Structure formats: C-alpha cells, structure tokens
C-alpha cells in the first residue's frame, strides 16, 4: 500500500487530552456520556445565538433597553443562559464604534458567540487592537471615519463583551429571522458591520 492516508501521530496536547479524559472515566470521576454532553453543549453555542439577540434588539426597543442595562437578564428572557453579571453589551451608534479584544488571553462571550476564531487569540490581534485599532479594522476591511469615536474594550477580568451593531438601512419591515441572517460573528466582535441590501 502506497497510500498512507491522513494518519498523523497525536500532538503533545492531544495526547494529554486523551490521557486525562480516559483517566477521569477510568477513575469514575466522569462518565463518557457526561463528557460527550459537555462537548455537544459547546458545539451548540454558535454565533447564531448572538445574532438572535441582536435581531430582537433591533425590533424591540424595550428589549434593547434591557439588553444594554442588564444583558444577562435580557438573554435569559430569550431562553439563553448567561452567568449573572458577566455579560456587557455595548451599542454602536453613528458617533461610537465598539470593538472587543482580550490582550491577556482570549476572553470571549462564548455563551453567545461559541468558540472564538483563531485570529482573536493571535498575538497580532491582541497586541495591535489596543495600540492601533484603526489600522487593524482597516485590515478587516472596515474603515471607520475620523469623526466616529473608536471604543476598544480590553476584556481583562470577569466581564465578557458583545457589540450590538447598528441596523443597516433598507432593512425596514424585515422579520427577526431575516435580520438575524445578516448579523455575522465579526460584527458582534466589532471588526465588521452588518451589510444591508443597499451596501
């Protein structure tokens, strides 16, 4: 057989994960089913949850007000469980553009956006986003006018941040579902803005 397939030996961390997982099961600390369930639960958390929250805020002024004042409570009312007091939603306006980074590690609102993209954890993004945010945003294709204030949130401790983007023009009368479909992950981190039919 010449075809060796895609087999590769386990990396150091993969081997550590397998060893730890098997030991926990063997010692009766966790069952294999509990581990599968925890992994599935992580997979179920995707940016669609965040998009659902944004679309509701765009269509329901009272919900938006609550989201900005008490994000965990507002999410709970949509059936999304967020640890109390640990989520802050920041609103983009014609005067202010918000963006989120964690310079110390990779703190991220996983409850609403799932697993962070690799670039979010890169040294390049983490070190430059607080130092030259306008240059970094331009690399993402987002040129923020000088008259708009850029507010960078360095997520260094117990809070997690999500950006509430502005609703694009031309989306008047759209259903929540249709609105949610134009809200992508990057726009909730603040490195992009949702595109409407006129953009």
């Amino acid at each position, binding site marked *: 057989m010449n075809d060796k397939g895609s087999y590769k030996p386990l990396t150091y961390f993969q081997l550590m994960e397998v060893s730890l997982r098997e030991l926990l099961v063997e010692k009766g600390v966790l069952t294999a089913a509990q581990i599968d369930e925890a992994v599935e639960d992580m997979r179920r958390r995707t940016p669609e949850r965040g998009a659902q929250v944004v679309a509701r805020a765009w269509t329901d002024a009272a919900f938006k007000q609550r989201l900005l004042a008490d994000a965990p409570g507002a999410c709970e009312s949509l059936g999304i469980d967020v640890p109390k007091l640990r989520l802050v939603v920041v609103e983009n306006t014609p005067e202010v553009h918000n963006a989120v980074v964690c310079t110390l590690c990779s703190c991220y609102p996983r409850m609403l956006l799932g697993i962070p993209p690799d670039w979010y954890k890169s040294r390049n993004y983490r070190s430059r986003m607080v130092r030259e945010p306008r240059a970094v945003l331009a690399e993402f294709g987002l040129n923020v006018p000088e008259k708009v204030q850029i*507010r*960078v949130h360095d997520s260094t401790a117990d809070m997690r941040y999500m950006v509430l983007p502005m609703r694009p023009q031309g989306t008047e009368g759209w259903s929540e579902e249709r609105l949610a479909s134009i809200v992508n992950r990057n726009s909730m981190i603040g490195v992009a803005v949702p595109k409407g039919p006129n953009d």
Partner: protein
Amino acid sequence: MQPQFVTDYPALAPRFEVGERVRVRKAAPLGHIRTPFYIRGHEGTIERLCGSFPNPEELAQMRDGLPAQPLYRVRFRQKDVWPDYRGADSDVLEIEIFQHWLEKA
C-alpha cells in the same frame, strides 16, 4: 449599594464613583495579574462598577480571594496611553481593573 452588586460572599466596599479620575498603580508584582502591563501608571475615568469578584491574584495561589475586590471599567484616552497614537482625539480604551490596582488621580 445597588442590588445587582450584592454578593453571597464577603466583599470590600467600592471606593470610587462613576466619573472619578483614577490612576492605575505602577507596580510589577510577580504572579497572575489581570491588570495589563501597558496600562499601569496611566490615568483614566471610572466608567462603571461591574460588581465585586474574588481577587484573581489570590485565586491563582489556590486561596479563596476573599473579601472580593470591586471591579471597575476604566476609560482611558488613547492619546494619553500612546503619545504617538494614530486616530481621532476622542478614541478610547476601556479596561476592567480591580480596586486594589487603582488610586485617586
């Protein structure tokens, strides 16, 4: 104190008010520090109180981190932090900083 900041563990009373000017202590202790190095020694304004949380520097040493430290979001002008900052004068950075890292400016 506002009800949402009440904790079921002992916490220190907040010493700073929203809008107050503060300076981040310029110190370099060893250990697990959640105050970014680049902001130490800089002045900013209290944007909001986030609540009180066990001190992460103590948690990292397997201690309980109590009494909990009030945690603030502090707003800094980019041009105060980076003298050669390229961007609008109004651009800001907001960072969570625990009370024991702050002093009156």
